């Protein structure tokens, strides 16, 4: 079947957001050459790196057809546990990182176990665990930051590995590649997408749905933990408020990147461009001293636009199925 170029591009998850990213970069750098200064690029890439890991944490759960509202609360909890372990307990930084990742995995698994075993919607369960994680966070910190971030960690969060490429890019690239590989080539990744794509078919085919849901939430917890600690490195402080503002962008980036909120279809590359678009919009605010409300409106509009495009593609897919083309 012959299709127009526009349609073929639309079929590609990352093409649309990629094009928009490039256009936005071009327009902004013409209007404001400072946008492409080495320092600004470093700042931009650092923000993209952290937000990418946050978005990946949500992407796994979107893939299985659920939502994780506790992503930010868990990231924040891990962040303060990480600094707290170093400052209060004197744990060496590498060990504290491992500890942080473990907390993320275990807390994520707890979410997954409760959701899979009770059959209660992930929305409710993670809404509850959001409160619990946040409560533990405030109980530990009394809402005061931990300041004992080691220099090595501070450096990791604020220096460049090469030119304008921050060290923070490293975990983001690694995480993105691993998740892409998982969705594409590993059994668990295919099961997550099969479950999100058609729960009944997955179940009747003998897929262990409980185990798959637990896996997805454990992975989500892992990414939340990594993002929390990356933010500690970048902010150079163990803020109890880390993660409070992740919710909207964690959904926005995957959706702009073509993910279907009903599950079964995600794009890591698309999510990357989603993150880039959000970062550029936020940066433009600073560069052109635009009112913050405009950014929010633009971001909201962008989400609507992305959902509309996704809807159109799903509609087309179902039409194709009926025609049996």
């Amino acid at each position: 079947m012959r299709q127009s170029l526009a349609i073929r591009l639309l079929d590609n998850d990352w093409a649309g957001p990629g094009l928009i990213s490039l256009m936005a970069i071009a327009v902004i750098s013409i209007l404001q050459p400072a946008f492409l200064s080495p320092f600004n690029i470093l700042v931009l890439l650092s923000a993209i790196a952290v937000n990418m890991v946050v978005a990946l944490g949500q992407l796994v759960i979107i893939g299985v057809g659920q939502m994780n509202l506790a992503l930010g609360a868990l990231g924040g909890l891990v962040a303060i546990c990480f600094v707290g372990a170093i400052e209060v307990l004197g744990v060496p930084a590498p060990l504290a990182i491992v500890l942080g990742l473990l907390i993320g995995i275990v807390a994520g698994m707890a979410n997954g176990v409760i959701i899979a075993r009770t059959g209660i919607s992930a929305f409710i369960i993670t809404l509850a665990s959001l409160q619990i994680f946040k409560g533990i966070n405030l109980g530990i910190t009394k809402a005061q930051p931990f300041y004992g971030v080691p220099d090595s960690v501070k450096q990791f969060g604020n220096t460049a590995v090469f030119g304008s490429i921050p060290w923070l890019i490293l975990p983001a690239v690694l995480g993105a590649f691993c998740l892409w590989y998982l969705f594409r080539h590993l059994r668990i990744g295919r099961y997550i997408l099969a479950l999100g794509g058609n729960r009944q078919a997955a179940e009747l085919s003998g897929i262990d749905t409980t185990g798959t849901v637990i896996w997805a939430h454990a992975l989500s917890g892992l990414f939340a933990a990594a993002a929390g600690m990356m933010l500690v490195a970048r902010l150079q402080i163990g803020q109890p408020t880390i993660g409070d503002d992740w919710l909207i962008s964690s959904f926005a980036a995957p959706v702009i990147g073509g993910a279907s909120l009903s599950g079964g279809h995600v794009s890591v590359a698309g999510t990357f461009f989603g993150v880039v678009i959000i970062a550029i919009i936020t940066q433009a605010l600073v560069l052109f001293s635009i009112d913050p409300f405009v950014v929010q409106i633009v971001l909201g509009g962008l989400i609507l636009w992305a959902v509309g495009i996704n809807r159109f593609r799903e509609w087309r897919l179902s039409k194709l199925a009926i025609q049996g083309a």
Partner: protein
Amino acid sequence: MASILEIRHVSKSFPGVKALDDVSISLAAGSVHALLGENGAGKSTLIKIITGVQAPDAGEVLFDGASMRFSKPREAGACGIGVVHQERNLVMRFSVAENIMLDRLGAHSLSRVDHTAIADEAVRWLKMLDLDIDPGTPVSRLSVAQMQLVEIGKALSLRSRVLLLDEPTASLTPNESAALFAIIRKLKADGVAILFVSHKLEEVFGICDTVTVLRDGRNVCDSVPLAGLNRQDVVKMMIGRAEQLARRAPRSKPAASPLLELRGYSSDAGHRDVNLTVRPGEIVGLYGLVGAGRSELAKSVLGLSRQTGGEVLLNGQAVHITSVASALHHHGIGYVSEDRKGEGLILLHSVLDNAGITIWQRLASRFGLLHDATVAREVGPVIAKLEVKTPSLQQTIGNLSGGNQQKVSVAKWIAAGVKLLIIDEPSVGIDIKTKAYLHDLIHELAGRGTAILLITSDMPEMVDVADRILVMDRFRIKGEVENDRVYERVSQAIMTFIHDRKAA
């Protein structure tokens, strides 16, 4: 011949209905076994028990002579029982190969999926089915018939010794069906035991060796050779004469001008050139097999899918109904859904809320205020008149029996005072007494001038209730049968229209 799978004296009850009562069946290697029965006879429940989706209350399942108790579909699959369900169970965005091998993508969670090996394995089964498609194709790109074959391939790839096919030809063209039968014969020659569920008797007589007929959850016959039987025998067994309903005299023909008229109607859902009239006080039956497009027509008229051609006239006026709300509030059309639990009722809400939902808009005050007492004044008498057995109007409707739930589904439209009531499969999952009551009720409503469009696959019900019967097949009206309530003549006439595919 040795039987591979034997079901002995199995019973299964659901709240308010006994789905299976002492049912037995035995499947032999290298033979095709037909499982027949009307809607609600218990076929699906039997299949669910064989495949481990549901556990029987009593009785046993023997596989190769050993007693089995499957608690998950996976366990039945591991034993070599493959099943192709009536509804499609494929992951649309996945490739053909991945769908066939879905439960065998790797040894453990972090195994790398060997796409080449999976494609090779899938091709083996695709070849066996003479299906020439690239195993890498996403399933969403396939035709319905191809999807069906992929599911059969998936079942076969488990090295199934028993293959259950639930209405496999429901969505196939005659050519595709013929190809499927060739494959079934090949599998039979290879020693597979096949259970074939179908409404189409000519197919059953074409390929099946033995037959089991269920009626009202019981065996009418258990694994008897088909050779000694003819069509009439089988139809008689399926329909039965036991719970013969009181035969009504044909009603006088209402002379009023049509309330609803469709002229050359076609819709987005797939209807073509549908002509239909319903007069006030008339009960028009719409008969057809599952998937013929009857419920879709009802929903389409209500505005749930787009009209693409023809005319809809209400009281002689051309109208264009675009939403269910306007169908009810402006045109007085109500619809009792066949899916009572999914579409008809809000199970967690009270009887009052379920019965009153249609009149909230009318009863609400100018500021949108609505009092339970106001609704109860209107709804109460209807609930009482229909003899709904409920402790109070506040009772959660999910706790009532199927029959009483169905009465409430009808009550809400009576309360709304609709002029046209479309009733879709009124007696699915309800007891015989309530069924008879509902039939009386439909007649009473018609007697008071309501136009009724009755959709049912239950032939005795159709013959008992309708004044005249339109036969639908593949989203078209195939013909009309005047109902003189002589069962043999009417059912024969209906079947002739449905089987008249080649001529059409």
